């Protein structure tokens, strides 16, 4: 998959920008706060419909402007598409090939993207929430029906939590309705659990190979999907259904007292191990970096496997941070098959060969000029 043309207007600090980019490697260089990340962010939003930096689409609109727009022509194994996202303070409009898409799930996946930024270390180091978001964003790119189920699940949680709060005060009548919400909850949770476990299994296969090779076989990476529902011995959907049904029953009194949903996929987590040692808790900075990088590279392969085409890769400020062996690995892994957009504050720390292959742009106050 490749972005052929990109057009931005009133996006972040960018007034207007037009980029013709049929090549495979693009390097954006400039001092801090000039708009390098903003450009990568626009590509991320183009692919996933939302930003990696903020939940508020409004922040993406240039201060003082009414609306922002990201337009692109993309090409891939399955033909060309025109994508167009318009952001206004009242909401966003996603348009594919001239047709407005009512559901984000029918838009996402047209262009896939993998972003690697310094803060990705938090996938390993951070809270469970960061890891769930990682799963949601990545799985969503290869499975529209996952997005659909997840959207419904989140809406259900809001309703269920409200009902639990209301019931604390006046029980009797609503109990029957809580049973209904539990039935919905069991269905959706089972579907989400199944999709996530399968996804993590596939991702692990790729990540393990990559990790072994980066560490020159000194370490073995394992990833464990940890369900908030007790799932010891559970191997299939029927088993999970029974487990969550039981858990909801067990927790009902407590949930009523606390007025919130205490179990379900919104409380699941991932654990990563290097040679059986929990990297989140005991890993060194270097081990955590390697694990994060392995996950990201695995994602590239998994998207290829699932969709038949490679994603675009967005590398924000990471090339200069990786040590030589990891950098070599990264560049080898993507070489020739993945269109890549890179940002850096300077060209120091980026090897000559990469510079020679890349189109290089200077970024200054939201404008770009190509270097001859």
């Amino acid at each position: 998959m490749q972005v052929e043309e990109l057009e931005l207007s009133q996006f972040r600090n960018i007034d207007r920008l037009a980029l013709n980019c049929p090549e495979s490697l693009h390097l954006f260089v400039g001092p801090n706060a000039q708009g390098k990340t903003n450009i990568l962010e626009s590509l991320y939003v183009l692919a996933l419909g939302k930003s990696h930096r903020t939940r508020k689409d409004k922040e993406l609109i240039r201060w003082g402007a009414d609306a922002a727009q990201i337009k692109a022509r993309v090409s891939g194994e399955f033909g060309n598409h025109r994508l167009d996202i318009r952001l206004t303070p009242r909401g966003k409009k996603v348009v594919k090939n001239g047709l407005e898409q009512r559901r984000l799930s029918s838009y996402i996946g047209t262009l896939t993207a993998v972003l690697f930024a310094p803060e990705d270390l938090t996938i390993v180091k951070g809270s469970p929430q960061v890891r769930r978001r990682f799963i949601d964003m990545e799985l969503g790119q290869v499975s529209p029906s996952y997005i659909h189920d997840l959207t419904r699940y989140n809406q259900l949680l809001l309703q269920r939590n409200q009902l639990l709060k209301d019931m604390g005060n006046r029980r009797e009548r609503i109990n029957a309705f809580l049973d209904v919400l539990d039935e919905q909850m069991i269905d959706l949770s089972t579907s989400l659990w199944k999709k996530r476990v399968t996804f993590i299994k596939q991702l692990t296969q790729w990540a393990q190979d990559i990790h072994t090779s980066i560490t020159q076989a000194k370490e073995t990476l394992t990833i464990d999907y940890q369900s908030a529902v007790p799932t010891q011995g559970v191997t299939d959907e029927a088993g999970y259904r029974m487990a969550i049904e039981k858990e909801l029953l067990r927790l009902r009194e407590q949930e009523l007292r606390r007025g919130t949903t205490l179990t379900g996929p919104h409380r699941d987590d991932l654990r990563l191990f290097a040679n059986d040692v929990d990297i989140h808790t005991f890993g060194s900075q270097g081990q955590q970096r390697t694990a994060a990088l392995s996950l990201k590279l695995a994602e590239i392969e998994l998207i290829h496997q699932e969709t038949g085409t490679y994603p675009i890769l967005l590398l924000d400020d990471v090339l200069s941070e990786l040590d030589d062996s990891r950098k070599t690995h990264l560049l080898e892994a993507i070489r020739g098959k993945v269109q890549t957009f890179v940002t850096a504050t300077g060209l120091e720390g980026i090897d000559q060969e990469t510079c020679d292959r890349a189109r290089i742009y200077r970024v200054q106050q939201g404008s770009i000029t190509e270097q001859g």
Partner: protein
Amino acid sequence: MYIPDPISKLIDGFMRLPGIGPKTAQRLSFYVLSMEEEDVMELAKALVRAKRDLQRCEECSNITDQKRCRVCGDKGRDRSVICVVQDPRDVIAMERTKEYHGLYHVLHGAISPMEGIGPDELSIPDLLKRLEDETVQELILATNPNIEGEATAMYLQRLIKPFGIKVTRIAHGLPVGGDLEYADEVTLTKAMEGRREL
């Protein structure tokens, strides 16, 4: 800027309508000023009459200007089937198909704790009363396919079980005339799930 009170009241009034922002409200208000007095009177009367003269049908809860709505009063309709919908607009949509000849029941919403709508805020008790009549054989649940609509349908299904009446749920799937290849994956998946034998 100074806007005479009657106009700003009118603007505020328009702005309470859905989908109308300040600019549109202002445009409509000034347009009203330019209209013939007679037409303005007609409009004002229509507004008041729509509110004052419309009531809920004592049988199906649809909005009507009589005690019983046209459908309920129609001797030709099949009284053994009731189609349960969320909104009076759903009845209009169903009637447009000219394919359905049974009766309706309008819930006026879906159960939604977040909006403070419980079973008692909807016309569910009236529905149960209708089921005591033995002529009713089938209930078609045609609530929306979102979480709230589905939950409402499931709730009704449980509630109605003791009556021993056949309960069906309308299928959600492919828009007719839409090409299969343009349907998104979610719609296709749901359509596959809802397939039936021919």
